[in-house]
């Protein structure tokens, strides 16, 4: 157990936390029981809180995250606002002062049982304070946006079982802009606090989730220190947003011997636009990449909204998504189609590995003990025709049963080059090589697409599971080619 200090709702709160205590555990231990555990895996958002994160060099962005996932120790020195800090309900001797978000939610019937509400309020407040949120112009709001510029996807990581969402949407769309004297809006003009280089060694013990003498937590100050520690303890687990590690801890009760926090390491947080490639730091969050790229990689722009909810994208990183080597991570198929290259670093060396050569088996890769993913490189120029198809039960925030990414170059209607990345149909993400071969050098027509679709249906070794049947997965591969044809058809016909 390690005493940590976090600014919570404007007050510095000090209390001990163990390496396996989530931020949610720690907050509730303080008596701040507004944030709730609904699912413990970042799906429901009942635990959402606001974190002060950097927004460019000198500014802060209120960023909503699931507090059930990250370790509390990672917030030592940080700054957090919970639903309690946004406003007060009133009662014995306390005046009612609701935040505009809370007021809209309360007045419009946005809460019924109220259990998900504090999380909704925090996710909504983050969007309320989004610096670039602008009311819609004369052309009207964009899809899934309110007239006030509110992006409904900001709430896609929050589940409500009672209301059916309509009143929550209405509350979100009714919000104005923050008042001039709003302290949380004013707070954005200064940088966030610098988190502490916390370390909590094995040897501590206490009442949290941690078994005595079992786990450690270290936030290295430099990449060099990180690689040094990893060299010494190769079974240490790297944590950035903890969107996977947190689930392992909460659901499967994984208790890693050492957690190394990498989310603030500047060496892993670069975004560089070169002549030959774009390099994306492995510890940038998906939301940060999204903002930094600003549409420059259209296939990634298609990926982001479908990758996961905003709450998750505010924490999850490409390093984590590729580091776990999940066969159903959505980034891999897209990055395969983009022919991405990973930069792997260890204490001894740095090397480049094509993503297509990176996966070796179910959750296994060429990454060696002591080696980390430092960055992802996307070669330039980009293929001009791209598509990402995610097949899942739910349209927002679900895990793929099949994911398909295309990146193709046409000469007229003839496919001169195509790369197809697949997720969910084999032990690893794979390239659909046979289908690529069948399409390359041919005109993309209804007939050639049908033929390639039949080949595509045989790619990989899809399984039956609770998400989908093997038969459906194979059918979805076939249909993906037909759709790719249908969606490119107007252009091709013009070319012809």
């Amino acid at each position, binding site marked *: 157990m390690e005493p940590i200090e976090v600014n919570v709702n404007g007050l510095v709160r000090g209390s001990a936390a163990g390496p396996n205590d989530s931020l949610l555990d720690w907050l509730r231990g303080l008596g701040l029981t507004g944030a709730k555990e609904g699912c413990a895996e970042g799906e429901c958002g009942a635990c959402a809180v606001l974190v002060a994160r950097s927004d460019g060099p000198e500014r802060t962005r209120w960023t909503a995250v699931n507090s059930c996932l990250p370790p509390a120790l990672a917030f030592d020195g940080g700054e957090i606002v919970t639903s*309690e800090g946004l406003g007060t309900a009133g009662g014995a001797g306390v005046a009612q002062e*609701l935040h505009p978000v809370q007021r809209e939610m309360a007045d419009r019937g946005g809460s019924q049982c109220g*259990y998900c509400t504090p999380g909704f309020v925090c996710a909504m407040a983050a969007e309320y304070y989004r610096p670039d949120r602008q009311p819609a112009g004369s052309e009207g709001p964009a899809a899934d946006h309110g007239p006030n510029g509110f992006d409904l996807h900001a709430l896609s990581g929050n589940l409500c079982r009672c209301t059916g969402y309509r009143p929550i949407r209405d509350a979100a769309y009714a919000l104005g802009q923050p008042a001039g004297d709003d302290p949380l809006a004013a707070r954005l003009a200064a940088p966030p606090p610098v988190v502490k280089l916390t370390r909590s060694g094995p040897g501590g013990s206490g009442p949290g989730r941690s078994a005595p003498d079992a786990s450690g937590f270290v936030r290295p100050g430099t990449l060099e220190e990180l690689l040094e520690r990893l060299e010494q303890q190769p079974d240490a687990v790297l944590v950035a947003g903890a969107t996977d590690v947190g689930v392992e801890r909460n659901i499967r009760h994984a208790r890693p011997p050492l957690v190394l926090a990498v989310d603030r390491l500047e060496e892993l947080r670069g975004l560089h636009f070169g002549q030959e490639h774009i390099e994306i730091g492995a510890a940038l969050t998906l939301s940060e990449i999204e903002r930094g790229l600003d549409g420059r990689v259209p296939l990634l722009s298609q990926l982001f909204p479908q990758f996961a909810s905003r709450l998750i994208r505010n924490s999850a990183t490409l390093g984590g998504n590729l580091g776990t080597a999940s066969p159903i991570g959505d980034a891999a198929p897209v990055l395969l189609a983009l022919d991405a290259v990973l930069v792997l670093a260890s204490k001894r060396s740095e090397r480049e590995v094509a993503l297509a050569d990176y996966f070796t088996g179910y959750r296994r890769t060429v990454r060696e003990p002591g080696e980390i993913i430092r960055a992802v490189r996307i070669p330039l120029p980009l293929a001009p025709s791209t598509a990402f198809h995610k097949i899942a039960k*739910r349209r927002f*925030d679900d895990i793929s049963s099949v994911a398909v990414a295309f990146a193709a170059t046409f000469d007229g209607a003839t496919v001169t080059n195509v790369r197809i990345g697949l997720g969910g149909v084999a032990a690893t993400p794979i390239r659909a090589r046979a289908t690529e071969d069948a399409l390359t050098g041919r005109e993309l027509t209804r007939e050639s697409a049908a033929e390639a679709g039949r080949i595509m249906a045989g790619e990989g070794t899809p399984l039956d599971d609770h998400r989908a049947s093997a038969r459906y997965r194979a059918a979805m591969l076939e249909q993906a080619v037909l759709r790719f044809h249908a969606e490119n058809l107007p252009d091709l016909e013009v070319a012809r």
Partner: protein
Amino acid sequence: MKSLADRPVDPVVGLTVSHESAALHVTGAALYTDDLVARMSGCLHAWPVQAPHAHARVTALRAEPAMAIPGVVRVLTAADVPGVNDAGTKEDEPLFPGEVMYYGHAVCWVLGETPEAARLGAEAVEVEYEVLPSLLTLTEAIDAGSFQGGQPTLSRGDAAAALERAPRRFSGTFELGGQEHFYLETHASFAYVDEAGQVFIHSSTQHPSETQEIAAHVLDLTSSEVTVQCLRMGGGFGGKEMQPHGLAAIAALGTVLTGRPVRLRLNRTQDMTITGKRHPFHATWEVGFDDDGHLLALRATITSDGGWCLDLSEPVLARALCHIDNSYFIPDVEVHGRIAKTNKTSQTAFRGFGGPQGMLVIEDILGRCAPALGIDPTELRRRNLYLPGQSTPYGQPVRHAERLRDIWTQLSGRADLERRRAEVGQFNATHEHTKRGLAMTPVKFGISFNLTAFNQAGALVHVYKDGSVLINHGGTEMGQGLHTKMRQVAATALGIPLAFVRLAPTRTDKVPNTSATAASSGSDLNGGAVKNACEQIRDRLAEVAARKFNIHPDDVRFVDGRVTGVGFHDRDISFAQLANDAYFQRIPLFAAGYYRTDGIHWDSSRMQGEPFKYYSYGAAVSEVEVDGFTGAYRFLRTDIVHDVGDSLSPLVDLGQIEGGFVQGTGWLTLEELRWDVSDGPNRGRLATQAASTYKLPSFSEMPEELNVHLYERATESGVVYGSKAVGEPPLMLAFSIREALRAAAAAFGPGDRPLELASPATPEAVFWAVQAAREAAADSSAAGERTVSAGLRDSGDVGPRVSGDVGTETGTASRPRGEVPSAQPSSSAPARSRRR
């Protein structure tokens, strides 16, 4: 004496007010059971030891290794139970089982200083099992003859003969899936021993009295020695009607044995793997129509999957049978009901309580048969709606049946049905890969507990000398807005502003022997009781005021916190002053209120009677869009007209309608419970036991346009302030979504033959329906009566799916139309007169 339904002038009921806890919800200040733990020191945490077998005998259980784990305080086993080792009311739910009945069944519980210590302790407990054969699917259980409970039959007339005579006959089978409640707040109990040995249990329970009774019988205490309080629940939906009892009993047992507060909160995985869900059903059916599409007869066997114990399966089945007619008059009916016993969680109450399942059977029949009858499904449904004077198969006249057609007509207009039908046709004609579907379905839902005795309620109302009012009643708040409505009822009955009225948490030492807050009855029953208590006090106060004003008590008026006389313009006193005066005249300012529902009766052995006080009506039109590449869909627009009587609280009722509709949509589309039915080591394991694998509707499932209209001039006589119940009925409005999906899928083909759609209609299920429709298009030579079932077989591993055989028309082939002997006693006329 004024009737229960009459409202005074300017009533507080009917006003649009926010949920009474809204400000607490949005600030995080609202307390739920588990939030109390942080406020009490020295609390122990409970963790279950869950069996990894679907069916097994416990041959040995060694707790000693757990006790070696630091922080483990005690392992609770059957030997610790001072009273009855049973968590239910049917004596078939051992709290500590010697025979494991489902995968994840808790065989014992470990108490630890921390959740981690308790978890590690549970891992260390050594249990030996003798694995036994298990039954998982409904069809396995049916084939094995594994049933539990009664097997009632609902019948009227002679269905066999009527089928024989029917010009158009179809038969088929249908399987529909269950549903996880997924209340955002998982089950939680927090127990401690209070003063003088009193056991105090905070529980997230819809049925505090039964939680109290079961904790008492486990502990061998009287009910008076156990108090259960429910502050509020983070959702219930029926999942906390029976399921909390055993968990509360464990916490109570732990606190009695250790002398320390014990917290038992299931995490999501435990909640999903331990507690019960909505019953899946299997149905085989034969139906007969006349040539105009009027239903003539239905003969069916419906089998629910009750899981491992009886729980509430019998009343759930009764309600399913009582709702298999939905809104349709079926002259001759013979429906057999059975409850399968399987090695799964105990299926239990879930919003609608079997009603949705029964109704889904007839809606599926109509949706499948309409193309074969050559009648538009919406018209087929309209044609069969109950008419005034007709009765249900169980013999209850359908009062206000005219509202069904009135709602249907109103809704057609509000939804602009005809124009949009043309637009959908136009869209489908011009889009190869995307099709839209439009469907309209009705709801008729009976209100009251089928079991007559449960239809009673109590309340305790206090007026203090300063005029403030505190009300207690037997109902629990789970988000449905019951407490909001009860405050409005009390304010209306006492003629005071809403702000005067506070509501105390539900607890068994305030109002005893309560019914579950269930069956949509919360405000009908408790509202009647609160009103009764308030009126007793008001009548006493009226006498005090009458003396003061020198008028007759009947002429005293209570308006907005002031008390005056009829016709007065310059004399009044404040409600607070009157309360104070009454105190000094030694007039009691508190009262116990009571309500019992009049005029209902039910003979469960004959399945006949008038079990429902009234029916709740509604209808919905939904438009959806289906992607032909994947089967994925979007819900474009839904219009609803729903009958809530004269609403007690319109914002609350609107929330119930919309929320119920979306929850029903989840059940019928995304929400799919998959169990491992393989013969592997995880046989019986719930494969969808987390939010990541069991998908609730999110924003993306809300219709892009949702218009809800409360049916007007709908006063329900005999119910508190003319209102109607609203909790469950709107869930079934979601049938419109499912039927719209069927229509959209059919639009990928010729649309002139039965199209099966599995339930839930996941994108995968819709894709297979689309493929079936496309194959039908390719196979143009097929005759109308041929089944269109290609692609609908289950892929094999887990879960309920639609069966392969479909609405096969059975009558027409052997008997040419026009030669049907049954033509003379046509359709519904004789049966109607029989039932009048």
